[in-house]
């Protein structure tokens, strides 16, 4: 049911931002950021349930907990980079948005390096 609330919130925010777009561009960016933050607070509850499920899964399967922490870190990096990039692109500055996206990709690659080395070591031990 709260998907309806989210949809109405988004559309109302867009309409308000449109009113301000012609005269004052910066206020429409502020309004869109405010709507993003409001919707984010709803996302938080969903993410918390997923994370608690991930922790429960950890006990069931004997997966090394550091890998799940890495995955969660990557999701966090992606989400923040996505938020910042889209705000920049909405304001019309795609170049800055792409820089943020490139930085996010590089940082995710760096975060996943230990997993890669562990994987290569296990393969090396087989050969």
């Amino acid at each position, binding site marked *: 049911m709260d998907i309806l609330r989210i949809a109405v919130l988004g559309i109302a925010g867009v309409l308000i931002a449109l009113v301000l777009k012609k005269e004052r561009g910066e206020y429409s960016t*502020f309004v869109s950021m405010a709507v993003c933050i409001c919707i984010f607070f709803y996302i938080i509850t969903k993410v918390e349930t997923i994370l608690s499920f991930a922790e429960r899964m950890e006990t069931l399967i004997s997966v090394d907990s550091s890998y799940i922490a890495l995955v*969660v870190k990557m999701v*966090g*990096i992606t989400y*923040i980079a996505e938020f910042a990039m889209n705000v920049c692109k909405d304001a019309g500055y795609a170049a800055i948005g792409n820089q943020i996206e490139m930085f996010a990709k590089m940082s995710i690659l760096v975060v996943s390096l230990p997993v890669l080395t562990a994987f290569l070591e296990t393969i090396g031990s087989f050969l």
Partner: protein
Amino acid sequence: MSVNLIFKIAAVGILVTVISQVLKHSGREEHAFLTSLAGLIIVLFWIVPYIYELFETMQSLFAL
């Protein structure tokens, strides 16, 4: 709490637009610029704590 933030920002935006139009037509360009600047700073003061709280929650939630 955060939903009426949107309406506050919209109200400030519309108010600043109207005031600057009136000031422009009455010949005071610099006052119009100052009011739009003031409106911008007010909205910035409102929204920065929310952005800070957003990134704090992200940091604590995803253990970044």
